[in-house]
């Protein structure tokens, strides 16, 4: 490879990394909200699948990407409502409910897809890249960062907004307190359950959006299990990011890089490593992350614990 080719390779890699990171960014920022409020939602895989399916179905019916995205968010939130009801109101174990919802999400979307769509074999119109004037003409950088679709661009906005809400508003302060010392919030006269519902809704809404991106901004099809474990990788991203939205953005990018790398390396005939090894890269990174960062503070101290008012 000569230098020019290598630079082109890097630019393509960076652009692909951001694109592939997008679903992770949405879902992990959402999960940051949820976990900051003390709710560990491991049902994100199922939630993202529901988002992906709803997005696809809505876009299929209306031909509109924005409506598809909204449907993805709504689907995720509806699924999240189920999770919130069981874990917050009924106070069931968050891990058990999350696992159940993962199975439900997989089964339900596969069932509905097979029933209504698989025979049509048709794809949908997906979000088209928007070339940002001038910036997209910068050599290499333009290719990497300024020829994405609007959903990809919006990740930056979402990360900044999420960080502001979490650290600069009264809502965010209370939400963080709910995950650390819910009783203090209760005594201060705020409804702990309502905040946890809110946090879960934000979390699953964003997870639904992340899922919808897979069908509306990336592939043009729904495929069974299209999330392929991204909902679980998100959980590792949140730990790695130390429960910070901006951190989640950058860690997601890193994971996006691994996805992009394995895709592009597979295409390089000169690489002799079996492609399965490359495919496993993001997952191996997840395991390494969780092992290396295991037990290192910063986790909300009431993560996973239902709150009992006396």
């Amino acid at each position, binding site marked *: 490879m000569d230098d020019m080719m290598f630079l082109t390779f890097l630019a393509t890699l960076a652009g692909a990394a951001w694109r592939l990171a997008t679903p992770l960014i949405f879902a992990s920022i959402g999960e940051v909200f949820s976990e900051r409020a003390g709710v560990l939602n491991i049902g994100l895989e199922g939630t993202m699948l529901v988002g992906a399916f709803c997005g696809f179905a809505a876009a299929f019916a209306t031909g509109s990407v924005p409506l598809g995205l909204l449907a993805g968010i709504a689907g995720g939130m509806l699924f999240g409502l189920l999770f919130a009801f069981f874990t917050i109101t009924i106070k069931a174990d968050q891990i058990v409910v999350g696992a159940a919802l993962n199975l439900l999400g997989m089964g339900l979307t596969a069932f509905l897809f097979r029933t209504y769509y698989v025979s049509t074999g048709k794809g949908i119109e997906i979000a088209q890249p928007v070339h940002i004037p001038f910036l997209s003409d910068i050599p290499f950088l333009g290719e990497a960062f300024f020829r994405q679709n609007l959903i990809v661009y919006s990740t930056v906005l979402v990360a900044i907004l999420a960080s502001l809400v979490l650290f600069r508003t009264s809502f965010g*302060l209370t939400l963080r307190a709910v995950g650390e010392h819910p009783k203090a919030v209760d005594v201060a006269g705020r409804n702990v359950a309502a905040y946890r519902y809110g946090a879960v809704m934000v979390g699953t809404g964003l997870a639904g959006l992340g899922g919808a991106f897979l069908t509306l901004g990336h592939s043009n099809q729904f495929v069974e299990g299209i999330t392929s474990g991204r909902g679980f990788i998100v959980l590792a991203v949140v730990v790695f990011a130390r429960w910070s939205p901006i951190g989640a953005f950058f860690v997601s990018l890193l994971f996006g890089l691994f996805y992009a790398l394995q895709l592009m390396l597979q295409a390089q005939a000169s690489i002799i490593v079996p492609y399965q090894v490359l495919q496993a890269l993001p997952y191996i990174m997840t395991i390494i992350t969780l092992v290396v960062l295991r037990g290192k503070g910063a986790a909300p101290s009431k993560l996973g614990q239902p709150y009992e008012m006396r």
Partner: protein
Amino acid sequence: MSQKPFLRIDNIRKRFGPIVASDGVSLEIEEGEIHSLLGENGAGKSVLMSMICGMVRPDEGEIVFKGQSERFNSPREAIRQRIGMVHQHFMLVPNLTVAENYVLGQGSALRIINDMDKVHARIRELSDRYALDVRPGAIIEDLSVGEQQRVEILKVLFHGIDLLILDEPTAVLTPQETDRLLALMGDLVKDGKTVVFISHKLDEVMRVSNRISVMRDGRVVHTVNVGETNARALAHMMVGRDVRMELPRSPEPPGRVVLSVENLTCRAETGLPAVRGVSLNVRSGEIVGIAGVSGNGQTELSLALSGLLPVDGGRVMLSGKDITGLDPARINASSFSHIPEDRHKHGIVASLSLSENTILQRYDQKPFASRGMLNRRVIGEHTRDLIKRFRVKSRDEDQAIGSLSGGNQQKLVVARELARNPDFILVNQLARGIDIGAMEFVMEEMLKQRDNGRAILLISTELEELFAICDRILVMFHGEILGELPPDRTRLDELGLLMAGQTEQPALVG
């Protein structure tokens, strides 16, 4: 007494399941007084006050505040009526700043927090006015317990209150901090506030109150003016029988050296040196006390002795055997009992039953287990026996220990540790959370152990506890033993100076 009391509680009843917490309590608080609520653990003091501040709703009865009948659904409503409470377990979010804790839950949820400077200024102003030394930007988890308590008190003042309820505030304080708190209560009353002080420490109650109400079994049994009573009478009212304030002990001289510590050094969890060359001996049949303001290395000393903190240097010998730096299991097995300072961290497993907690160190030994199976019958009997002997108030031995009051948890820990028949007993804060009736009992048990030839090292910040049962008192300051005194109350000043790190006193006993 005025015609309309400031706060009137009329025939309040509250049950939690089968437990009656308030059994028709009536109480009147006058404006501008310090009214102490005295009573043993479980007498219903905290529950009563939780109902006044909106944490708990009464089943029956009436609360009349400033002539108006009130029924608070949340602490927020109580604060709106200017009633605030400082709880025993602080309501502070550990990873937020002081100021963030104060604005938590205030105003609209969608408000953007941009006026923190104003909040900081207001906190500084209040802090200066009452000399509370609270820094608005400090993160809660970096503060000592005493500081956190001042932050809590200031929080209530920040929200603006007329009636301040303090729930066992001195339980976590050093003598100096306690003095400071009692003085603060006086200042608040001068500023026109009314204070309800929940405590079971007679001397503090006598020092600071105008009136004292004594609670027992969910009822107020007496309300007296402070001038018309004394500590002994109060103790009698609390317990319902006479309490001996002086405990008899046998004059037997101590025997062989059981625990010998030579030049022990270790670092705190933060990595800073905490114990700097401590040497001491504890002989059989004696109780050696270690006095000191908390945070002078006592915690680390006890953790290092019991194997919970690595030892950097020096030697610990128990009955001639080197136990320096062994793991806790092996130290435990060397006839070493430990009644830890932090019960929840090192003493009990809150979610396990009383039975399971009593065999924590011996679950794999006969007679509690054989061939890898627990012998539930023996464990149950053993636990019931301890519960009975140590008067642990509980439903049965299968109840989770976390659901008992702190005092009863402590009694079970003491019972378990003594039941192991150790040569040496390390105690850090014997009476933490224990009421006066139980304290007398636990101290008597300690003296019995002493008379049976056990060696006991008692680390305590409660001087009364040390004076009552120790044979000699060592003073720890800045990780070192600064001196030794006999348990002589007339030499309290000397002890105080040593605790403050001053060694130039000529009267040191070697």
